[in-house]
């Protein structure tokens, strides 16, 4: 392979350089019916799972067909998406904030044809390429992070856990039979690039072993004060140690103070903490972002640890379906998962979901802990 230059000249890096132009203006990409009626939409309807109708004050209609995607996608796949958009939608499409793909057309017949086309396309391994769904009171696509595919701090895989989960709850993606929307999110470590801290159901990768210390390289690779300051519990202190007859600057970890957040590793690559047996998944539930009826809420940990069981994480998917089934049976129409748990009480939540309550689920992290303890005699037997 010969190096091909697009025009960049390292000898004169500033020559013809264009910087700080921002993204393309969104108007260039809007479908004509969307551009024409922007700001004057009157109402919408979900005609069937995955098919939306938006009606403008002008009477114009746009039909949207929504389908799931793996988020991690190749250019071959994107080109196929483009082919579909060229064939049906005049070359327009959009993505949702939850990594679904949306194709927009102006007649119901086109929407039906599009749905058929999308559901008809499969990968060689047998899975759908573009399953239609993800609307209304159901499970839509999972927002997630990189996991073992590309990240340096994960405690689990992201794409794999999401694939396993979406396979397990696929019927809730293609139907709208739950009491309210259920948003599942996945983050492969406590950094939470996926912001799972406010989701109905959160899959969260966690570590359980304190960092190892690579004394040989630490002083060269890390700023010791930054590593010390990185620890939220003050478990790290600077120290010196003998390494192959030489005295080196390094750090020491008070292990019983470690809550395995991995922040030290982020600041100092010589403090890795991932481990096959130590790492796994915590399940959190009851978070929400919407202000609808009740205020936004944080997710709560209900299962402190599930081991990594690649490739399909069966214990994790079993727990998720147990929670989803109990919620589906017990909640009222419009009631989000956390609101249902609050109404029946968390002691009852564990009972009906078949989950064990353990001391790991009582908060012991600073002030927030106190606000979660019970200060009333109102409880259920």
């Amino acid at each position, binding site marked *: 392979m010969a190096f091909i230059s697009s025009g960049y000249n390292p000898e004169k890096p500033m020559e013809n350089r264009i910087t700080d132009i921002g993204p393309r203006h969104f108007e260039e990409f809007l479908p004509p019916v969307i551009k024409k009626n922007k700001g004057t939409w*009157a109402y919408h309807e979900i005609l069937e799972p995955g098919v939306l109708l938006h009606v403008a004050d002008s009477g114009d209609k746009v039909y949207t067909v929504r389908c799931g995607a793996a988020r991690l996608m190749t250019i071959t796949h994107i080109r196929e998406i483009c082919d579909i958009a060229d064939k049906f939608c005049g070359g327009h499409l959009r993505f949702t904030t939850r990594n679904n793909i949306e194709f927009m057309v102006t007649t119901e017949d086109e929407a039906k044809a599009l749905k058929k086309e999308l559901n008809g396309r499969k990968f060689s391994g047998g*899975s759908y390429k573009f399953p239609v769904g993800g609307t209304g009171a159901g499970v839509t696509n999972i927002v997630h992070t990189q996991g073992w595919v590309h990240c340096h701090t994960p405690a689990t895989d992201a794409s794999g856990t999401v694939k396993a989960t979406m396979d397990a709850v696929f019927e809730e993606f293609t139907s709208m039979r739950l009491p309210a929307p259920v948003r599942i999110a996945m983050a492969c470590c406590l950094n939470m690039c996926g912001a799972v801290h406010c989701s109905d159901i959160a899959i969260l990768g966690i570590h359980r072993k304190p960092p190892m210390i690579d004394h040989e390289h630490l002083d060269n690779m890390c700023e010791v004060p930054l590593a010390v300051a990185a620890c939220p519990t003050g478990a790290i202190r600077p120290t010196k140690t003998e390494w192959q007859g030489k005295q080196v600057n390094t750090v020491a970890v008070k292990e019983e103070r470690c809550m395995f957040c991995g922040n030290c590793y982020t600041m100092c690559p010589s403090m890795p903490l991932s481990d096959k047996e130590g790492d796994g998944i915590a399940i959190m539930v009851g978070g929400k972002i919407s202000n609808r009826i009740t205020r936004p809420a944080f997710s709560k940990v209900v299962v402190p640890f599930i081991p990594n069981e690649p490739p399909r994480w069966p214990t994790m998917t079993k727990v998720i379906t147990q929670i989803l089934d109990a919620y589906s049976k017990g909640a009222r129409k419009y009631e989000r998962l956390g609101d249902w748990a609050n109404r029946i009480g968390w002691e009852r939540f564990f009972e009906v979901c078949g989950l064990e309550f353990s001391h790991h689920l009582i908060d012991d992290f600073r002030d927030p802990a106190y606000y979660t303890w019970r200060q009333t005699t109102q409880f259920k037997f």
Partner: protein
Amino acid sequence: MAKHKTPLLDQLESGPWPSFVSDIKQECDSRAKNAKGVDYQIPADCPDDLLGVLEMSYVDGETHWKHGGIVGVFGYGGGVIGRYCDQPQMFPGVAHFHTVRVNQPSGLYYKTDFLRQLCDLWELRGSGLTNMHGSTGDIVLLGTTTPQLEEIFFELTHNMNNDLGGSGSNLRTPSCCLGQSRCEFACIDTQQLCYDLTNTYQDELHRPAFPYKFKFKIDGCPNGCVAAIARSDFSIIGTWRDEIRIDQKVVAAYAGGEIKPNAGAHAGRDWGKFDIQKEVVERCPSGCIRYEGGKLEINNKECVRCMHCINTMPRALRIGNDRGASILCGAKAPILDGPQMSSLLVPFIKAEEPYSEIKEVIENIWDWWMEEGKNRERLGETMKRLSFQKLLDVTNIKADARHVREPRHNPYIFWKEEEVTGGWKREIADYRKKHQK
């Protein structure tokens, strides 16, 4: 013929949900065949090696990506994230495998010609693998080598008229919901505001000068489809402050069962006949709705704009006409001190171009946070450490009952000297004149 055996990953090809493994395998085939005769600028078999290293992680239960590394394009401190495999001999195709963040268009609408240009670029100079999209909202191009970075940037800016996004301790690529483009609930033009802020603050986006990351997210209404309240340091959420518009005829149509409630979102189960009293009136969190004699009345003064009634009867009820946004500050995920939701700072602000009022709030906050924030301290943590009052001070915003869920529990008030009659300076000798030791 696959380069590496991947028996564990192969199990993720079955099941209905789109398989990323099958997708990567089709990319491997495409690059092996190279039907178009592309002169690949990074190893053609890098997707094969990605599957290989991922399979190894599935066996080992641990990641095989090294920690960071500083790479980027000239003059920028963000937009590219260095990534190296820790088994480069076994998987040379992904030995260097950097991520490029590309600034996405507001609302994530695309024309296929743009996407095809992106695909061509990433076929020639990258792995052919992407995220559509990353958690912050960017288009994420996964996997290239250092010599390609400037060339990719040149192509993006010269031929695609598009810039990189943000990474590191800077402004992260702002993102928004699709807003007024296709949603009747959007109170503000989220796309234009997002575009304007992104372009106004290009310097902050590309040249890290902050204590830590800073995120703008813009939701068109309190339904919060981009989760601004949960994950942005500066959350702009559309709202209104006049009356919800009611079409009583359509209310009657909902009551009569002619129109499905909640836009049909519950159609998958028989929940019985729609009952306005039970499903709307009794669920209103501020109890400000009455339904009598077939007429729906809302006491708008008591409404908290939660969206439930509007979501449930979108054809009968519409957002008010006096629209703007609420600004909330300080959301973040748990690292370091636990999760934080954004706290209300500005109850209502007009969101009209050139958005000067909003920018004034932003810049006042930045001046303060850049001065006072510690290394890797998000705005929410600075607020917690130095007080909400300090945030009010620096933004010249007057305290308001809307700023709190409830007033403080403890009377340990930090009075300022100028707030107390006579100030703090007193003479002990004067005190002793009236009080013996």
